[in-house]
């Protein structure tokens, strides 16, 4: 299997098999909170893809060149949180200044992502995941790609959820089940459906 094949496996794993929301249960807060409307779900998804890719790159560099040489691997969580929060703030400022249109569609979701566990999750998973040979860990490109595909997986699920919830608004749901209860049941059914991808042999 060439490198392209490996990337394909990584994409399938991040998007379907080890989906961040539905099988790792990370980033549930925006999954339930921002999934009421399709266009805001799309905006949130794009912001998450962007931040996850960037965070994967930066945290990889920080870990490899700053933490590991001094034997400070145990500090990765705190330094990753610090990095991600600062990064998101910085990106928000840059976007607000340079691209007001992008800021309007994306900017409101950026502060939400600052403390999103899915972003921290992808940074930490990148440090422990093995490549397909089972010996070496992810290199820089692998980490960035994994961050990107994880973000795509998050977006796919978030938009699927939003699409279903938009239709649910018009359906005849029993009064006691309206709103959050039916959304939680829906989330459970979706998680069960994604559980089926576990059987994929890649």
């Amino acid at each position, binding site marked *: 299997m060439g490198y392209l094949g490996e990337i394909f496996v990584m994409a399938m794993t991040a998007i379907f098999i080890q989906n961040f929301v539905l099988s790792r249960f990370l980033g549930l807060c925006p999954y339930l909170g921002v999934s009421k409307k399709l266009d805001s779900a799309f905006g949130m998804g794009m912001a998450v893809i962007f931040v996850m890719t960037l965070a994967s790159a930066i945290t990889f560099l920080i870990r490899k060149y700053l933490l590991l040489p001094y034997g*400070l691997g145990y500090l990765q969580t705190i330094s990753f949180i610090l990095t991600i929060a600062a990064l998101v703030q910085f990106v928000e400022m840059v976007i607000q200044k340079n691209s007001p249109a992008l800021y309007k569609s994306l900017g409101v979701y950026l502060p939400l992502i600052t403390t999103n566990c899915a972003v921290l999750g992808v940074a930490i998973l990148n440090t422990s995941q093995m490549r397909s040979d089972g010996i070496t860990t992810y290199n820089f490109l692998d980490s960035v790609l994994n961050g990107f595909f994880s973000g795509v997986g998050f977006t796919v699920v978030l938009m699927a959820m939003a699409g279903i919830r938009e239709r649910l608004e018009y359906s005849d749901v029993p009064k006691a089940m309206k709103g959050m209860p039916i959304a939680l049941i829906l989330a459970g059914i979706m998680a069960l459906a994604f559980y089926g991808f576990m059987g994929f042999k890649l």
Partner: protein
Amino acid sequence: MVNTIILMDISMLQTIGAPVVIIGGLGLLFGIILAIASKVFHVQIDPRVEQIIAALPGANCGACGLPGCAGYADAIVHADADINKCAPGGTTAVTTIAQIMGKEASTQTRKIAVIHCTSGGKQSTNWKYAYQGIETCKSAVNIADGPNSCSYGCVGYNDCVAVCLFDAITVDEYGMRCIDLEKCTACGACVKACPRALIDLVAVDKVVYIKCSSKDKGAIAKPNCGSAHPCIGCGICAKKCPVDAIMIENNLAIIDYSKCINCGRCATACPTKAIQDLLVGMRKKAHIISEACIGCTICAKVCPVTAISGELKQLHTVNDSLCVGCELCVGKCPKHAIEMI
């Protein structure tokens, strides 16, 4: 011995120092970058938005039709929204916003909520059955058309009191709801909360209200009403109204407040006392100051009850028995020759 201690000290310094320096350095670095970025990428936010947010009451009631006070402030500055939409803020908010925006303050007449029903109290309601359930009006009216005999009247579980953000509705010793004219901001929350749609917003300068919402025929409405003041749809008020401001629809009198002149004749005429007149017994009569009158006949033309008579260029007189004290003539007289006594 001495050497090992020194060595231990150095390794300990390293174990403690390295993480402190690295994490602290990272934090410092990010802090400096963000501080510089906040200057370099500073975006001017319209200061008027913040000023308007400060001028608004901050109740986030949504009476303006926009999501919250911040949304309304943004809409005023950027979307050219009307500045007089804030009901809770009243005239003070409008004038402040007008100053900030350099716009003319076109204040709406302040409105207040009026409950169009006189029953709903402990003694003033005829009960059909004893309701034992969730103590909200919304729940009570759903069971067999409500526990009170009148299917249009107040059930008295105070949904309106619960929903009022401004404590403007209180419950008195008889279990009746009283609206505080000073505190009411006409936000409309109670109007929406009342499952029988008994509450309505009326301009604060109007003093005559139909205190019934029953659309039943008189013969049904009368025994059902617990307070003995039902509107029976007889139409006497409509006939007595000098400006045709009252209409009878579905056995119920409705006042058209764009026409009403506050004369209170309908309240006096109503056989069931279903019309409330806040100024009853306090109305003054018009009096023409003879020295100032030039006989222009304007007052006679404007009088809705033809209580003023007189020839052109002659002194006019007011017939006290006809005058209803609406004060329309006072405002119209070019010589300010009419006073209310």
